[in-house]
């Protein structure tokens, strides 16, 4: 689960990280009022679009303002803006900061190291993936011991590698350790401060924060549900998830209903291979009961662009005859309205195909043939 910058900052502040606290507003007049409260002595604020997307700066989603009026004007520009498909509904208004130096400090679930890796760079404030691509030597990486956690000497070694002066090392290591504690304590998969700045008066400040949380760990963080922004999530995906179905909305017109995640991806790939475009990823899960098949159909049909539906079921423990009955029953409950192409193999496949045939539904034996037929059907 992704959360907004302001939510990440709040979370990090709870772990003792100095963040540039601001006020979240959702209308231009709010931005004007927020200016009065946060501008402070510097008399300037920064307004930042709160969307689950990078590239906010380039898209014009971050602006400075030197007066309440300017803040309101900037907010008018940013609110409602589309940033990589995300509509801006909220703004963070925070004090503008006199930046001395900028660093990058991030922590990731490191699949390659099978651990938790800290990454830091003196190239802060820029796209770190670009730094990683072009000048990887400017990124310092340290992997925490899986059982002991991040050790003090590791945090220090990052600081020294960044060339931070001795009197400032302690402040940096405190932040690195707090970020690690926040990462572990929140079951994050990513926690980033970019930039982590040293102000002109030598204070450390987390100027921008980003966090992603491990979906598998959400059950033990009940309080994180309040961080979920329904505006940022696809309603169909949420409904699927609540019912044990994995669903991801895509841009094509061939709806896919598959059992198994790997097979579901392979099905999408096959559609593409034969010239079509998948409308979704959908793993109906283990059971494939009438209820699940019905819901899967509803989810796929929620997308008005769908022109054909491709079922790809490999009956393993699940029997094909049961699946066939499920499809027929589901079709009665849902008004399908587009062609259905079914591929059904595995346990009891002959019986399953007979049942489909009796109901006037043709079916295929191979994924290739079914995918090809679905592409044809969508062109209709």
């Amino acid at each position, binding site marked *: 689960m992704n959360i907004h910058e302001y939510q990440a900052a709040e979370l990090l502040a709870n772990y003792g990280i100095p963040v540039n606290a601001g006020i979240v507003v959702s209308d231009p007049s709010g931005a004007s009022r927020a200016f009065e409260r946060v501008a402070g002595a510097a008399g300037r604020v920064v307004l930042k679009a709160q969307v689950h997307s990078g590239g906010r700066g380039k898209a014009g989603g971050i602006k400075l303002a030197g007066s309440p009026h300017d803040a309101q004007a900037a907010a008018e520009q940013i609110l409602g803006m589309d940033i990589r498909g995300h509509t801006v509904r909220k703004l963070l208004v925070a004090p503008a900061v006199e930046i001395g130096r900028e660093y990058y400090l991030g922590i990731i679930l490191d699949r390659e190291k099978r651990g938790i890796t800290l990454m830091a760079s003196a190239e802060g404030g820029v796209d770190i993936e670009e730094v990683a691509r072009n000048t990887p030597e400017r990124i310092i990486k340290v992997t925490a011991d899986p059982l002991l956690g991040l050790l003090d000497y590791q945090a220090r070694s990052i600081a020294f590698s960044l060339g931070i002066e001795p009197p400032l090392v302690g402040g940096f290591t405190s932040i690195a350790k707090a970020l690690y504690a926040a990462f572990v304590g929140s079951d994050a998969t990513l926690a980033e401060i970019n930039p982590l700045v040293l102000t002109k008066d030598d204070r450390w400040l987390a100027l921008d924060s980003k966090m992603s949380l491990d979906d598998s760990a959400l059950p033990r963080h009940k309080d994180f549900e309040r961080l979920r922004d329904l505006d940022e999530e696809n309603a169909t995906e949420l409904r699927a998830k609540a019912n044990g179905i994995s669903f991801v909305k895509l841009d094509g017109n061939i709806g896919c209903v598959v059992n198994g995640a*790997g097979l579901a991806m*392979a099905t999408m790939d096959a559609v593409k291979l034969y010239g079509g475009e998948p409308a979704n990823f959908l793993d109906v899960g283990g059971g494939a009961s009438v209820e699940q098949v019905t819901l899967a159909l509803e989810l796929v049909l929620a997308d008005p662009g769908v022109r054909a539906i491709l079922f790809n079921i490999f009956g393993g423990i699940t029997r094909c005859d049961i699946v066939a009955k499920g499809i027929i029953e589901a079709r009665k409950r849902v008004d399908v309205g587009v062609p259905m192409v079914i591929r059904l193999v595995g346990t009891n496949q002959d019986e399953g195909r007979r049942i489909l045939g009796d109901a006037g539904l043709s079916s295929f034996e191979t994924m290739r043939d079914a995918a090809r037929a679905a592409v044809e059907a969508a062109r209709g």
Partner: protein
Amino acid sequence: MQPAPPSRQQGAESRKPTIVSILVGRDTRLLVQGITGREATFHTGQMIEYGTPVVSGVTPGRGGSSVHGVPVFNTVADAVAETGANVSIIFVPAPFAPDAILEAVDSGIPLVICISENIPALDMVKVRAHVAARASRLIGPNCPGLITPGEAKIGIMPGYIHQRGRVGLVSRSGTLTYEVVWALTQAGLGQTTAVGIGGDPIIGTSFIDVLAMFEDDPETEGIVMIGEIGGSEEEKAAAFIREHVSKPVAGFIAGQTAPPGKRMGHAGAIISGGTGAAADKIAALRAAGVEVADSPAGVADILKARLN
């Protein structure tokens, strides 16, 4: 070819049980952790039906009962002491699965297969480190298990689609594996062993571990490797194949059409931070001499051509 019991070796990566007709064999004595759960009970029946020697189960507090005639114990230590279990399959729900893995490993079980899904990744970071420092091998979590056709089925795969044969199969996916197994069976190639290593970001056994076993296994003539988006294990496997695998390898990578930043079912199937795209994996495998099919069933065609 003689199946042999798990044996221990020296060295960091290789200090793990290696068994002819890899991982399981005639001396396998299977323990089912969480045996009284609905899914576990069902699959225990399926495994017994397939001929797998299921010797015991564990559900804390249910010691003294039995499931399909299999005695249930309160602790793994008791099950090992009483029934000589040497392989464990874990079906317990995610919140309790890390503890179940640790219990199995600390009780000295050399091969532990964890089916449970949705285990928090940071739990697995710790569990994996603990297991890696010990003589046990963990497969999974979030995997379908493994099968040596005609010998033992330790997992949730449909047994009948398999046929003892010449191809070793390793995969991050479940149903996609069945698809490929089915194609191999229909092509008359069959399988030596099919291993699902799991779809999570942090797993106990990697492609490389299993590829090395297949390379060493005299019965295995060809290898199928099924990857998917996310992480860079396929790239690492490609580098390993280039250096260490002499047998023909056919591959398939799922998720060519998957968008970045979206989790495609499996917790580990996500393109993020610029890594994990299917195209990179396919390119790496091809560069290592692996023939990559454009459909799952295609791997059977490739190997049929290479092995005949």
